[in-house]
């Protein structure tokens, strides 16, 4: 924890369409360890929201328990949010989404919260195709309880005390792909040039968008032998696709390298430009995505980028034909039609 809050100075910074600087999208000071990858993910979120000209109050932040789940306090101080029970964030997000589909839902979770205690919740939120950005800050370790292996720890990787992990890991991206997610990405907290466009695309994706971010635990999992350390990730880091996101309102300019890029139009009209860095990887091919992810376990490469994209799936709101108007905007009389209406409804089941 730092000795003081970050001084607010933004006269040197550009303003977005709402007249806000990137500093207006920050939250309270982080209490995580100095050098935690999560703080870098927070900074990427702040940058992405600012670039998207998103009004802070249009966002709802949801999280469970863990170091990662604390970070919702550290960005967009002026938005909605709830920090709920361990592993139960997807249920709360589902309820909130049903009541108000207009907000931008941002779920922040960790490998413990999503892949152990909340594994079932995680799976079902994907099945429901909940319209949210789900960021899994993955460090392979239980940081808050001092460094036990998590379910995401790689087979054979070593704990800080030198003990080898003898269990197979759960890969959240493979899980999401098999469960039918329409947006699956992997990124690294140390590379914001990749992470920021992915966050923007994920926010604009209509449906469940998973970004599994390798976010090193600087205190318990940043040693030699760890496969989630900064040094290891930098060494084996291998982006498969580079993503640029151009919002609906913006002009597609020459700033984006369009040569050989796949151009994908999102449901809200924004466009994605996907550039392969090498090999013939097509992020629209689900089988190839699963195969690639399973394969990389043997080669050690950490393959990142937008691994799979299908923006044609109906999200929970559409599939269940939920009312378009958020409940808080529905007049009281319609929302609670009264005793007579209740009696009439009950009569239908007699």
């Amino acid at each position, binding site marked *: 924890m730092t*000795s*003081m809050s970050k*001084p607010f100075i933004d006269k040197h910074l550009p303003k977005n369409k709402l007249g806000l600087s990137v500093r207006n999208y920050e939250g309270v000071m982080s209490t995580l*360890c*100095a050098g*935690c990858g999560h703080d870098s993910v927070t*900074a990427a979120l702040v940058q992405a929201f600012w670039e998207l000209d998103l009004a802070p109050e249009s966002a709802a932040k949801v999280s469970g328990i863990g170091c990662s789940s604390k970070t919702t306090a550290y960005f967009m101080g002026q938005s909605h949010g709830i920090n709920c029970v361990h592993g139960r964030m997807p249920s709360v997000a589902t309820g909130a989404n049903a009541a108000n589909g207009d907000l931008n839902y941002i779920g922040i979770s960790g490998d413990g919260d999503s892949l152990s205690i909340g594994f079932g919740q995680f799976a079902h939120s994907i099945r429901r195709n909940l319209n949210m950005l789900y960021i899994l800050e993955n460090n392979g370790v239980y940081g808050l309880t001092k460094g036990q292996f998590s379910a995401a720890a790689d087979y054979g990787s070593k704990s800080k005390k030198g003990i080898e992990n003898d269990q197979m890991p759960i890969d959240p991206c493979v899980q999401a792909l098999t469960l039918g997610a329409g947006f699956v990405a992997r990124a690294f907290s140390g590379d*914001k040039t990749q992470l920021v466009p992915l966050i923007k695309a994920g926010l604009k994706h209509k449906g469940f968008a998973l970004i599994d971010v390798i976010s090193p635990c600087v205190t318990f999992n940043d040693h030699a032998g760890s496969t989630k350390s*900064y040094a290891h990730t*930098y060494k084996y880091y291998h982006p498969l696709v580079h993503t640029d996101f151009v919002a609906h309102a913006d002009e597609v300019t020459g700033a984006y390298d369009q040569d050989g890029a796949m151009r994908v139009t999102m449901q809200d009209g924004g466009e994605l430009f996907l550039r392969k860095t090498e090999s013939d990887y097509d992020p629209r091919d689900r089988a190839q995505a699963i195969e690639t992810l399973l394969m990389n376990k043997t080669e050690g490469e950490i393959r990142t980028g937008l691994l799979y994209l299908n923006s044609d799936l109906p999200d929970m709101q559409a599939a269940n034909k939920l009312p378009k108007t958020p409940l808080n905007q529905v007049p009281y009389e319609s929302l609670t039609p009264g005793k007579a209406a209740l009696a009439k409804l009950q009569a239908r089941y007699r």
Partner: protein
Amino acid sequence: MKPTDTRDPDYYHKVVDCQWACPAHTPVPEYIRLIAQGEFTEAYLVNRRSNVFPGILGRVCDRPCEPACRRGRVEEEPVAICRLKRVAADHRDEVKHLVPQKPASTNGKKIALIGAGPASLTVANDLAPLGYECTIFEAHHRPGGLMIANIPSFRLPEEVLDEEIGYILDQGVELKTGHRIESLQALSESGYDAVFIGSGAPKGKDLRIEGRDEADANIHIGIDWLESVAFEHVDKIGKEVLIIGVGNTAMDCCRTSLRLGADDVKVMARKPRQFFKASPWELEDAEDENVDILVNHSPKRFVVENGKLTGMEFELMEYQLDEDGRITDTKIAGTKIIPCTDVILAIGQENAFPWIERDIGIEFDKWGVPIVDETTFESTRKGIFFGGDSAFGPKNIIWAVEHGHQAAISIHKHCEGSALDSRLPRGVNLQSAKMGVNEWMYSNSYTGEHRRQMPLAELKARLSNRKMEVETGYTAEQIATEVQRCLNCDVQTVFEAPLCKECDACMDICPVDCLSIVPVAEEAELRQSLRVPANNKDQDLFVSEPLKDTGRVMIKDENLCLHCGLCAERCPTAAWDMQDADIFIPHVDDETRKVAAE
């Protein structure tokens, strides 16, 4: 771009913008911290070591440090550095026993110093404690040079002046007042080992236009008139006074006129306001006393009726400016007569050396300015040195002090018979400011408070008393606030590339986005590739050695850094550390210490 060599003492020195801008390189953040701790005496002595006259300069310095102050870029206004210097001087305890003392014995070397202004006094201050027998020759009956003759007492009280000059004279310096040097040749033949000329730029420029001679009784040369007021030969002036010129002397003339009975004082400027030479605060102070400043009036003639000055005629100027604000065309749109009883000419001053023979080996340029070496301050004749306004024309007190320090080193080397240009280099000494986990030896927090305004004496009271000091000094609350506005730029951000694991923590926490990790490139490209483009080219980029995991480099744009230490607090490996940089500026006593060490 190559990795930055931070062992070059100038690199970290430049980061301390105020200290770098100060001709005498006063360690500003250091003395401001001392004031914050209530160590006024210590703060005074730190100042005195560099600038010799903290009480005087704390009132009337030209403050090159303030426009340079980083705070002015981060917020709106710079730290009130000059006002804080005065705080140290006003609140110090007795320092008589703490300043350099008269040595037990002399070294037998005799130094003549001409003119008892800030340059000569500094030379004496540096040399006398080392045993040099210094004799200052002063034409007036009191020492101080322009500090007493040209700066009015309402800006610089005589007690302050006398006290600080006293510290120097008490070191065994002989002062001969009322002793005008009429011949340098005669002086140089009278047994001195070296001669230092600090006689200033004592000749005010005249304005030879129609009516000048007829109206002579009511036309005054600014610096001569101020001198006559200071030495009490003049104690009144007419009701309507025009000041010609708009430099700092003009400001002193108009304000002095108000105190000698004038009630309508106008400063006449030939050009628009952006071309004024006066310091902004001196303009403000004059306008605060209801002086009118009229622009675009170019003097045409003095209007004389019955042998007496009744007014002055001006040409009304119109200027065409280009995009950069330079004048491209001038037009006279008409003329206007402005009535007045007196005119004071404050249109500049020049050096005058009628007492230096032209055949004794001292060369002058075509403007009559002596040719002086910019490092050693030696003239073209060995053993004769110049400093202050007499060396390179009118500057200001703080420059004169620095000239004095440098000339003292040269005089010492001259007397020792060593080469004048083999001077001690500057140095930098770094020491970690870390006291514990996120605890630093300085106050690293940032306050958004704005610059404190100097309280002034009541207008009517001050105009009725020429000697009443206008600025009354900061209150305790103002001091407490102003000291915290200093960003402690001398506590440097020091980076150890091999320790960095590229976690981005420092970049994310930096409140002014001055850190970036990017692939190395040429400077112009690098400046644009940072998180926030580094467009202030006056400020350096720090470039680290390549980082071990990606080969990229850490870049720091020095422009807006708050020196808050958050990068160091957030760094998991202490690759960033805050280190107090002590910039070593050699003085003549350091040169003697070096000799002793050898």
